């Protein structure tokens, strides 16, 4: 019985150590931060690309406000609508980095070399496919204002207005 107390104490110390380590390993894993993509305050010079009439479009600059790099895969207005596709060059965007999305605008939205747009337009929402690390692709909604929203309000995504 003399050794029993010592063994019990050693077992307790060992158990505490194992438990602490296990809990540390389990609890110390930082929770995955959310993926935050937002429209950046865009510079004037990259807003539009309308070099060829009736085949122009709008560049929308997005910014990674999250804390980890993400890879942008694709973008769309809506996966079930007839809205035109959006083009995005797949690339890794570091925290604070920016990436352009090209939104083609139908020719009927052009007149006199400019887009038909409407002032005080509500924001439009696009969905961006984003992958973090080797994880699955997540679809992140991004609210877009400024020129794209004005074009959407003035001409609509299909060029018919509304």
């Amino acid at each position: 019985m003399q050794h029993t107390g010592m063994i019990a104490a050693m077992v307790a110390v060992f158990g505490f150590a194992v438990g602490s380590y296990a809990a540390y390993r389990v609890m110390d894993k930082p929770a995955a931060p959310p993926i935050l993509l937002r429209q950046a305050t865009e510079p004037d010079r990259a807003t539009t690309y309308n070099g060829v009439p009736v085949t122009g479009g709008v560049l929308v600059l997005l910014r990674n406000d999250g804390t980890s790099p993400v890879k942008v895969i694709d973008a769309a207005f809506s996966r079930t609508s007839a809205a035109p596709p959006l083009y995005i060059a797949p690339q890794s965007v570091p925290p604070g980095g920016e990436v352009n999305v090209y939104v083609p605008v139908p020719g009927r939205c052009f007149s006199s070399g400019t887009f038909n747009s409407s002032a005080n337009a509500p924001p439009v929402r696009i969905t961006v496919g984003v992958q973090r690390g080797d994880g699955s692709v997540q679809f992140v909604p991004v609210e877009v204002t400024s020129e794209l929203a004005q074009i959407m309000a003035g001409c609509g995504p299909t060029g018919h207005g509304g």
Partner: protein
Amino acid sequence: MGLEIEFDYDDTEGGRWSAPSETQPLRARVGRRWNAGLAAGNPLFVHLGIALAALVLGAASTAGFTQGRQAARDRAATVLHLAPVGPFVIDSPPSPPTDVRQLLATPWTDAVDEHVTLRVVNDGPDPVTVLGAQVTASQFAPATLLPAAPGGATAATTTTTTAPGGVSALGGVAHFVCGDFPSVDPVATVARLTVRTADGGTRSQTLMIDRFSDIEEQRVCQRMPEPGVITSFGLLHSKTRGTYTVLVGVTNRAPFPLLVWVPADAVTSWRSDSGLDVRAPAPVSIPPRGSANIAIPVSVVSCALALESAQGGYGYDSLAFADFRDGPHNARVHQTEQGLALAAPDEIAKYCGLPELPGIGGGGSAG
């Protein structure tokens, strides 16, 4: 708890094994041993129990410590970003009057105060209180922004805690001096925010609003009426066909002398895109609040382009204005330009004839 006492009997009778001992089944003996092993007083069980309790205690204490440390970190975190919608808005000055008389009656100024709104979203794990911000840009003096109440009023006492995911609005006034910004590489518009975090500490965070200060800031100065006002526009016919002179009257509203000239790129554009040879006159100096007439000789060099230009009403930035005191070739001069339609439809039609229609020959001698 139970205590099992095992008695050993001497089952021998005179050195001979008694029958019951010989017939004790092995199963019974194993079962007895097994029951003894399962007894709570077994030291192995005691050790296991202690170890399990220690495990649980260690896990719980470490988890608590980790959580507490993370919570302390969260309370001191400031993760602010520009709001998704309307992050930075500068009110626009009213549109300048289009009527020349009204414009001449309006005192000239290059300074304007405009209300600025900055919206930031709290992406951190805990609530924060945005106390204010200092916004710097190349186009205006550093502006101090204060929290905006729901009604729009701003005050240092208007502090509202912003929950995670919430948006804080700050407002203030920016003083623009439109002729004052240097024409060097653009500087980013930056906000330095002062934030009180959940732990009671006050921290700072810097946000870049606009890398080139292009969007909101330049719009203000673009709407400021220029010092030079075109008060008259006329044509002087020439005996030489295809040649005429545009007479432009310009009045200077500013209290400083104004330099007016035809920019070289406008001359190039008129020639290459509109088929007109524009001979730029020598720069003209207009005294403070004075007027001057500028004569611009024009010749048709391509009828096809000139007719198209006249029909389309092309107008390039054909007159440039600058403060005469800055000198004409100063790289840092604040230069403004105004559009002017130098393609006179009647003169071009007289020289070139009717526009060429499909299947019908036309055009003048210069095309």
